[in-house]
């Protein structure tokens, strides 16, 4: 046990993989319960993170450092700050829900399914806690493989096309990031005499930033492309709807819940602190793209015949908010963006779970197939209503806090774009309510819908934590803000002053430099 709390992050990262490997030895019948138990244990372990993390403490806490590839200056460096703390908790919070949700959703090849889910969790948590850019890249890629198989094997009809598109899109982006990491490590050697890909060392690397195509800007663009694809930002978002429509429910919940946050997290951890001047030169370009993403996502979502695709495009719109929030470069906008990531990580999975439940009953996701479901499934209607409200950012739900702060932050940075972005509030309501009305209200046209049974106890257990989280995050956001405030302040300070801020690491860091 002692080892665990001194190396909490490593246990958190590799426990799911270890648990999954153990799971392969058990009979198929018990594998889903085994995985559920594993994910719950992991969630309780991660709560220790929350209590252990002191808001005023050093920037990166729970740090662990071990030599990995001394030849290339790569070391196994872990640590979290206020922002990645919440993202890790979001991951561990969502996983039990996902496992419970796919209890009877998945019949064939169950054991591989649950092993892949746990492997995916290892990749995600690893990426959030990695403090070394190479280690981050390894987890970033390793995360792709399980997701690829999840979509590819258990997906819908054109799952192979969607899985391949998902993989290639992210892969191309991340390869350029890899080249940028090499270049940075080499610059570190040139300026400080020794190779290192550790993040805090790279923060100290000085690059000439003037102009649109200076080295710093090119490096920034390499990183930004990789993260923009992941976010998905406007021009490179087309993989998301395909991936979501074809992915199984659990897959799209994790994809929407956590993988999209990887892009935002990447901006916060890598692109902003490493290349402050470049952020300033490209600030308005990305804010324009973000605003377009909001309006474009909302408009295209409006005309989608397929529920899952509609929710997918709504994610494009919501994540557009995150981008303009981040690029507003002020405390309000940035913390709003982080909060929006958390809120989106709760409300969109809820929507996907609900659509999944409808799919399990009627095996179709077409909106016109449904109508008047409230009459037959009232409890489902209540849950769906709450999720819709969270998605259209009604005050009192978690969506509002994020959007309000982001729009306020954007207003300070660029009022014109703020107006465009605020129209997103209207279109958001339009497409969600129109879909809600066509699915839930009106007479029951299709007699198949008459016999649908309401939520089972299992399904209620799946949705309850999300519903509670929606309101909890909406009514007392300070509970979440106080832990992340100092980190966001440091982020803004680092990008604002456009030069290097010394970082303090605490925990058992044997810095070998």
């Amino acid at each position, binding site marked *: 046990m002692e080892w665990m709390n001194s190396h909490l992050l490593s246990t958190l990262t590799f426990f799911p993989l270890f648990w999954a490997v153990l799971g392969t030895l058990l009979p198929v019948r018990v594998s889903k319960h085994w995985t559920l138990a594993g994910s719950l244990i992991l969630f309780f372990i991660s709560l220790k993170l929350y209590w252990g993390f002191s808001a005023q403490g050093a920037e990166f806490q729970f740090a662990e450092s071990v030599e*990995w*590839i001394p030849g*290339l200056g790569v070391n196994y460096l872990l640590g979290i700050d206020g922002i990645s703390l919440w993202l890790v908790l979001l991951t561990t919070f969502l996983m039990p829900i996902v496992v419970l949700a796919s209890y009877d959703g998945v019949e064939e090849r169950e054991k591989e399914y649950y092993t892949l889910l746990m492997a995916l969790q290892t990749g995600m948590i690893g990426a959030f806690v990695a403090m070394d850019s*190479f280690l981050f890249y*390894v*987890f970033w890629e390793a995360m792709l*493989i399980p997701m690829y198989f999840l979509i590819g094997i258990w997906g819908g009809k054109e799952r192979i096309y969607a899985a391949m598109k998902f993989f290639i899109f992210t892969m191309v982006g991340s390869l350029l990031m890899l*080249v940028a990491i090499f*270049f940075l490590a080499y610059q570190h050697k040139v300026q400080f005499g020794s190779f290192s890909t550790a993040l805090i060392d790279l923060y100290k690397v000085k690059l000439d930033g003037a102009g649109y195509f200076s080295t710093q800007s090119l490096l920034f663009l390499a990183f930004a492309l990789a993260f923009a694809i992941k976010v998905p930002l406007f021009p490179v978002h087309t993989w998301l709807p395909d991936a979501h429509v074809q992915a199984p429910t659990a897959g799209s919940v994790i994809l929407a819940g956590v993988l999209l946050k990887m892009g935002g997290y990447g901006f916060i951890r890598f692109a902003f602190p490493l290349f402050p001047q470049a952020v300033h030169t490209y600030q308005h370009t990305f804010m324009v793209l973000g605003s377009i993403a909001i309006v474009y996502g909302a408009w295209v979502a409006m005309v989608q015949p397929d529920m899952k695709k509609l929710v997918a495009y709504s994610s494009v719109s919501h994540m557009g908010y995150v981008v303009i929030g981040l690029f507003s470069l002020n405390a309000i906008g940035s913390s709003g963006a982080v909060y929006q990531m958390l809120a989106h990580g709760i409300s969109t999975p809820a929507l996907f779970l609900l659509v999944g439940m409808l799919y399990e009953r009627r095996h179709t996701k077409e909106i016109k197939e449904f109508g008047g479901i409230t009459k037959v499934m009232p409890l489902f209607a209540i849950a769906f209503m709450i999720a819709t409200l969270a998605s259209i950012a009604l005050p009192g739900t978690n969506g509002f806090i994020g959007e309000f702060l982001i729009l306020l932050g954007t207003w300070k940075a660029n009022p014109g774009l703020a107006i465009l972005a605020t129209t997103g509030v209207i279109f958001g309501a339009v497409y969600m309510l129109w879909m809600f009305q066509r699915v839930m209200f009106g007479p029951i046209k299709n007699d198949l819908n008459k016999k649908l049974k309401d939520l089972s106890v299992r399904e209620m257990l799946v949705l309850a934590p999300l519903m509670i989280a929606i309101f909890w995050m909406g009514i007392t956001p300070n509970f979440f803000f106080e832990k992340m405030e100092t980190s966001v302040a440091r982020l803004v300070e680092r990008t604002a002053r456009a030069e290097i801020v010394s970082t303090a690491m605490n925990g058992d860091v044997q810095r070998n430099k």
Partner: protein
Amino acid sequence: MEALKVVDPALLGLSSEQLAALVPYFWILGATLLCMILSVSRVIPAKWSVFGVGIAGIFFAILSSAGQITMHRTDLFGGMMVADGYSAFFNILFLGAAGLSIFSSLKYLDKEGLQYPEYYVLLLFSTIGMMLMASTLDLISIFIALEIMSLSVYILVGFRRNDRRSNEAAMKYFILGAAASAILLYGTALLYGSTGTFLITDILAKITTTPSLTTPVFHLGAWLVITGFLFKIASVPFHMWMPDVYEGAPTPITGFMTTGIKAASFAAFVRVFIALGYGKDLEAAVQGRLHDVLWVLALATMLIGNLIALTQTNLKRMLAYSSIAHTGYLLVGMIAAPGSEAGFAPVVMYLASYTIMNLGAFAILSILSGKGDTGLNLHDLSGLAKRHPWLSFSMAVFLFSMAGIPPTAGFASKYYLLYSAIQAGEVWLVVLAVLCSAIAVYYYLRVIVYMYMRESQTEGGAINITPALGAFAVAMMVAMTLQIGILPSKMIAITKRVVAKI
């Protein structure tokens, strides 16, 4: 005529420490000769005995050369041969390749009904040739080692006598191989003419001391030698033979060729490359131009290798083109070697992990292939995951490793190679290399798609249960791929030390 009279006695005798250096060669030579005798005898059943002796020879040879890696350099035969860490490392690689090829071809030959002991003898001879290539410093003995290796492989490629494709492949390989080695020889002649010596160490010494020596004839000769090697490693303009030969040859032999022969050619190529003064002593003009030519060749190799592989449905042909692509990456390593601090270490490491990956992949293919190498098209593999979970898992690991996706050896070595390329300032080449490998990801994943995501057409029973030895070989390869992928630091350290002393 005086030269004849003066015979230096030291040349002939072998000091004890030189003998120690030659032990691995003795082991493999002894095993080969014993196998030849056994293969003829009526008394003892040829198949198992030859197999047993061969494997024993290889095993002991690996043990002895493993000891030599840390050994300092000892010159043999008056500088013509050298036994240093570099040659020991490559010896292990060749012996490993030969051993594993024998393992996987045991069952394969039974299937094909070609169970002749000569197969193993030829294989061992070719291994000897490779080992010599890695350790000689004399141009003529490089040629001889090359010929030993190639001739035995020509025959092995044509081993399936009554299969027209195998014969055709052997014929093509023979003719083009002979022409290429003739070109190499002519280059050697020109080099000899301009520098007066065969030893590449002397050549290097001579051109560094008297730059005037680098006459046009010298450069012509140097380039002809380099072209000879480029043919052997199948760089783009000279790659045309490779896909046909790989498709025609029996699968274990193709495996042996992609790994062993390519590694041996590269081993010799590296030594000659350094000797010809690339990077250090040629005056700027030539140096710059040579760099540009190699740059274009590397890019063309990567691009064409990956692009054509996209359209291939036959797995062996696809892996042939992918091996051309990997040659491209290695060429990037060669270009970047002088400029980067790690030197040729990344190239050596990439070769090692490339060999492991390909050996594993071809071992699996030889297990899966039906009679006459049928059943190796993409759609034959569909639904393999259900029939052979472990085989498809290991195939997936190898494919991920070739695509360069983390926790695999392929990724670690590609990272190390591109890392040093960046140091050498080849940023744009690296970006192009990275984009080419993005193309590669598609056709590697397509195989995985067929294996995991498609229903298997043939509802027939599982193909013959995987043979124990073949499975053992594959398992070992998977273990090594993942080990290097997760903890590459040990391998990097070895390669650095090995390369330091060329």
